């Protein structure tokens, strides 16, 4: 039983989507709960993938290949979790901000957050402050996560935070930001709750805030 979880982890790290799908089926058939498969198979594997990326052992493509393998298991586990009304770890609304069309980093953040056990609502690129506000009202997430790759569009992160405040929603969410030109200093200056330099760290910081610490 323990073995199959270990094998799932290895399959995700090695990017083997068909194998992870099969192993997930085996695990569920063996009577392991969907929560266990998620939290002891898929999630720790993606944490390793994130670490490997940080250390320069994995490149973006490899991270995406591992994420695909993770999804091949997650897609089996998700409907079971929903039917059991299992508490998800938390929910994040993620998008690239207005005026910005770069989505590779944002997509990786979505993948890693899902691989970290969170529910993710992806608003795509070029998301206006109004779109964020509407999504927060609709989905009531724990996190709002914004990506910007251009120095000009970074300003729209501040505008989005302002719009959330104007709508009385700021206190209801934790705000995380990132993207190549974004820095911790910038995050502090616009009053974001956290900044992360890469998608793996985004999950680590979200985890810290979820358990009530400071990112």
């Amino acid at each position, binding site marked *: 039983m323990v073995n199959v979880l270990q094998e799932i982890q290895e399959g995700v790290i090695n990017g083997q989507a068909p194998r992870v799908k099969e192993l997930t089926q085996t695990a569920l058939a063996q009577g392991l709960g969907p929560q266990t498969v998620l939290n002891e198979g898929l999630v720790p594997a993606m944490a390793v993938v994130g670490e490997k990326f940080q250390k320069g052992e994995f490149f973006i493509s490899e991270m995406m290949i591992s994420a695909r393998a993770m999804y091949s298991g997650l897609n089996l586990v998700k409907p079971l979790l929903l039917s059991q009304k299992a508490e998800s770890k938390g929910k994040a609304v993620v998008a690239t901000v207005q005026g910005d069309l770069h989505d590779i980093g944002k997509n990786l953040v979505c993948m890693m957050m899902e691989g970290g056990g969170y529910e993710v609502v992806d608003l795509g690129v070029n998301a206006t402050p109004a779109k964020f506000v509407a999504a927060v009202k609709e989905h009531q997430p724990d996190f709002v996560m914004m990506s910007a790759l251009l120095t000009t569009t970074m300003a729209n992160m501040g505008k989005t935070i302002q719009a959330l405040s104007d709508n009385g929603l700021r206190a209801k969410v934790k705000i995380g930001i990132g993207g*190549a*030109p974004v820095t911790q200093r910038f995050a502090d200056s616009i009053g974001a709750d956290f900044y992360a330099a890469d998608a793996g760290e985004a999950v680590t910081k979200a985890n810290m805030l979820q358990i009530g610490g400071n990112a």
Partner: protein
Amino acid sequence: MSMTHRERVLAALRRQEPDQVPWVENDIEEALQVQIMGRADFTPPELCEKLGLSGFGAHFPTGAAADGQGLVTKETYKESYYNPQKVTFDFFPPWIAKMGADPDTGRTYIEKGLLVSEESLKLFDQFLPDPNHPGRYDRVAEWLDKYRGDYAVFARIRLGAASTIESMGLEEFSYAQVDNPELINEIHRRFSEWSAAVVDHLNDMDFDFFWANDDLAGNTGPFMSPKVFRELLLPNMKIVAERIKKPWIFHSDGNLFPIMEDLLSLGMTAIHPIQPSAMDIGKMKKEYGGRVAILGNIDLDYTLPLGSEEEVEAEVRDRIKTAGPGGGYLIASANSLTDYCKVENVLAMSKAIKKYGKYPLEG
């Protein structure tokens, strides 16, 4: 001894010491060009003169009615490729992708790559113009003749790597590395053969150098592993590189250090743009400056769009001090001059280059 702009650029590209550090930009967005000049009907040499640039290429707002970037569809693309209406020196293949346009700026972007299967390869015929059609070469030759003067003029091309990645989309490109590497190879080969045919024509024209744009990397490193780069991309990029008979600059954003040795095997004359947020120019100069010339490194994350004129001046001075000694350095922004760079900062960059760029450099 004073040199012409062209001599200055060619000397620096040969890693020799020119009379002063030359300035060339891969691209200056047209809205910024118009802001700098205060009008839209200027010629490329007029813009160079105003800024003190030593060369030009890319595209200009000058010419007949604007051919609204956002409006180019695959149906009209070939025609506009053969018969460019505005002054351009670009020879890029189109992205084989579903394009979107930002309603506010008209800037086009890639919504989705369309090359995802063997079946989709037939799109090459639909999208790629005939690389041997004389239209564009004839038109560009006229502009070269008219505007070249003493400036170094470049044509922009691609080696095919960026075309492959963007036309597949990074996700499909990644998955195919395990599912179907031969598909990547085939797509890349087709783009590279197209560019190689283009290069055969450009070699015979009055260009002084080529600038090959193939973004491969983000801030932390290349999109793909060095192994995948070496096995799937590099051999195809070589198809183009080996046909080039002029000095040439390789451009990729991001951190290229993890694949630098393989990249250098392409035999480029220079590497651009050495983004300060991704690569340390001091390390680049020290470790590779004896093998390639270096261009770029004036920051686009903060300094040019948000910094003060004093900060621009200080950065220019610092870069010339770091990368200028012995020659082999051409100054440029860390990508292009985008329309959100402050005009006064571009002018401050121009002034600072004249002030600090004269050889022998300050100690």
